[in-house]
């Protein structure tokens, strides 16, 4: 182990740039001020009609693109804003980043306004019955280059690659609600393999639509506490009833510490470790004994070369679903034992909602800011604690603390469990 290599002899990974957008605002400054003051970004949805929907609240980002531009355009705009903030902070040219890109982005498909427009075009082109034959006729008969882009899963990455000058074939990935953390993990692994001196990892999600709400509602995953939107997301509370969908993006520029030091960059923090483990139990539920999440936490700590006594704060996955919060408590109390009672843990999702594909990246940025500012963001709406969850959730009000190392958890549908360990730069 030297200054530039870790406990396993691998390059130490420095975080030199970070960017974030959420329903609270654009940029780290605005987000951090609002997050630490316990402000919620959850509101009644105004962007589209919500009649017939069981859930009518979300943490949508309504200040980036016009509503009619659709979710693909918003997903890109969010990713671009977070990426540019991170690249600027790191001090690279914003159009010539020169390293590979790892992008966590939601799956795509034609949106309803596009299908309706195609149906209209198909009718004009002589199609008789509504349906896919008429949509295909419209596609054949006219030019729809933008619609084509909406069907391409690599489209957002291709545009962002061009914008920031990322090198090589960008990777677009999805590990459901762990995606943002996986993007950071892939970037870290590439640096450790010596493939790149610097990488950019981005998680983005602008996919709150009526259909997405219906899909999650049908799985009984969403809170239906529509009357007081800012109070609906209440992780670790007894009366939690589901997560609140939300939008946003987070980004890290990471470099080998050696390369960052050589160019005189400011080291914001260290990406010490990543761990993952897949669950084979069920498509939406976790194995009852929590073993995959436990294995992911342990793998992340081992990868970081850290013991259970070295974690000062946990940035929870904390979705506010009955199942997740219980399972997260089970896994943490198994790994950390009695120590867990004295490790503060809070859920950013109590304020910004569940940003899905972006969550792992956004929460990694907030974990870094926790270390840098010495402020633990609160878990708001914690008025009715779940007696079965004995955690110090930093209830309702921020707290000052000396934080040297953070564990950030991400758990998702499809058995995805990914954890990150982020630390302060060694003195």
């Amino acid at each position, binding site marked *: 182990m030297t200054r530039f290599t870790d406990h396993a002899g691998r390059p130490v990974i420095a975080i030199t740039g970070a960017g974030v957008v959420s329903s609270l605002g654009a940029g780290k400054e605005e987000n951090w001020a609002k997050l630490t003051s316990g402000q919620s970004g959850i509101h009644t949805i105004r962007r*589209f*009609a*919500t*009649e*017939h*929907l069981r859930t009518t609240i979300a943490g949508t980002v309504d200040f980036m693109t016009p509503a009619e531009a659709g979710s693909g355009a918003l997903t890109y705009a969010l990713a671009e804003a977070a990426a540019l903030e991170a690249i600027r902070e790191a001090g690279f040219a914003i159009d010539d980043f020169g390293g590979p890109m790892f992008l966590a*982005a939601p*799956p795509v*498909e*034609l949106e309803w306004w596009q*299908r*309706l427009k*195609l*149906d209209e075009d198909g009718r004009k082109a002589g199609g008789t019955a*509504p*349906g*896919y*034959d*008429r*949509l*295909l006729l419209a*596609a*054949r008969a006219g*030019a729809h*280059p933008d619609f*084509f882009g909406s*069907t*391409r*899963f*690599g489209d957002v990455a291709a545009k962002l690659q061009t914008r920031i000058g990322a090198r*090589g*074939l*960008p*990777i677009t*990935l*999805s*590990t*459901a609600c762990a995606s943002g953390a*996986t993007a950071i993990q*892939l970037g870290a692994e590439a640096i*450790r*393999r010596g*493939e790149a001196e610097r990488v950019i990892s981005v998680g983005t999600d602008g996919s709150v639509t*009526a*259909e997405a709400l*219906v*899909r999650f*509602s*049908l*799985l009984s995953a969403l809170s239906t506490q529509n009357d007081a939107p800012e109070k609906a997301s209440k992780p670790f509370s007894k009366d939690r009833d589901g997560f609140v969908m939300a939008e946003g993006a987070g980004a890290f520029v990471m470099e080998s510490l050696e390369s960052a030091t050589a160019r005189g960059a400011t080291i914001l923090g260290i990406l010490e470790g990543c761990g*993952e*483990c*897949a*669950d*084979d139990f*069920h*498509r939406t539920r976790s194995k009852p004994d929590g073993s995959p999440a436990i294995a992911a936490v342990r793998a992340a700590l081992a990868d970081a070369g850290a013991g259970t006594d070295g974690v000062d704060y946990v940035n929870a996955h904390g979705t506010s679903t009955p199942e997740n919060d219980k399972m997260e408590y089970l896994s943490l109390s198994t790994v950390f034992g009695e120590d867990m009672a004295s490790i503060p843990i809070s859920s950013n999702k109590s304020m910004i909602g569940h940003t899905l594909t972006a969550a792992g990246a956004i929460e990694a940025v907030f974990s870094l800011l926790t270390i840098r500012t010495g402020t633990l963001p609160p878990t708001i709406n914690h008025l009715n604690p779940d007696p079965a969850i004995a955690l110090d959730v930093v209830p309702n009000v921020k707290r000052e603390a000396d934080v040297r190392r953070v564990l950030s958890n991400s758990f998702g*549908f*499809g*058995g995805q469990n990914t954890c990150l360990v982020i630390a302060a730069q060694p003195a």
Partner: protein
Amino acid sequence: MPTPDDVVITGIGLLTSLGEGAEANWAALRGFSAPVLDRERFAPYAVHPLPEIDWSQQIPKRGDQRQMEAWQRIGTYTAGLALDDAGIKGDEALCATMDMIVAASGGERDVDVDSMILEKAGESDEDIGIAINQVLTTELRPTLFLAQLSNLLAGNISIVHKVTGSSRTFMGEEGSGISAIQTAAARIRAGQSTHALVGASYNGEHPDMLLGFELAHLCLRGEWAPVWDREPIEGGGMITGSGGAFLVLESRSHAEARGAKIYCTLGRIAADQGPVGTQQTTARLERLAAETGIAEADMIVSSASGALARTADEKAFLAAHAPSVPVRGITSAFGFLRDAQFPIAVAVAALSLSHGEDLPPLGSDFETQAEKAPSSIGVLTTGFCAAEGMVVLTKANGGGE
């Protein structure tokens, strides 16, 4: 020279219109005379359809089968074939430590529900957004979402085959398949992983999938021709298909320690993406060729899509830079399998090397006869609208660099 850190292929799972299993597909390719096509169901478009499959052979629980849409069933089934082939299926310890990277774009919509909404849109005076909400809320099957989500192919593989070391899903057409194999192999080579399941599947038998391509006027509408010869035919040159390709990759030392059969050695994968003009595409292909040495291989297996512009660029590149290397455009036989294009080409190259047999031309004059059985094969994917990838495979005892 072979080294313990080489990445080798020890398992192949294939499911295509030509049949089920690696051997059946190799035999069908060797004896190829015409593709299996369905011209009726999606006319004026043809598709290479899946044969009748007894899904319970790899997905024993009916409940699991019902939880999946077609692309997930194809992928989960094909992953099972690959694990079986590698002798890993059912080995709890090996599966629990096995890494997995799946290339999957996913998403299969309920055609009936969509058609219902489109019908309502034409006749309703109500705000269409409200009408859509009403139909979706009442008509969508509650678990359909899970059968659409990209990462749930990997999720189903974990559930059915117990592969749980890690689970990552890459998205983005051919590029995702290239990156999946590139990343899995790089992790093994660097000691970040010892064995990995990697692959992709695609269901071409769905109107929404055809719609995606036809929005850019990419689908062929006339008679079938080999991928290299489609410019004169009406439409955009692409014929899609259904199928899957999964591989088991291992470090040579890991494979040898457990006495696994080794198909071939996988070289370093080179990949890039950028503007798709002919000049820029050619420059990238030239750089990747220099990195991989593909022009020195004995044969090139290409997954050219048939899409006119990109396939013409690839053809011109091959004619200029590898004029004496026999090329095989396997999409002529299988149809275009989107995310699975690179994995299936790697699988075919591995089968050729392990059999010690060349792949005969697949109907095009562009494909010259091979003079000998290849001992090295280049794989080339030029994505239909983005991404390029190359790798050279050598025989089982060949070096991986």
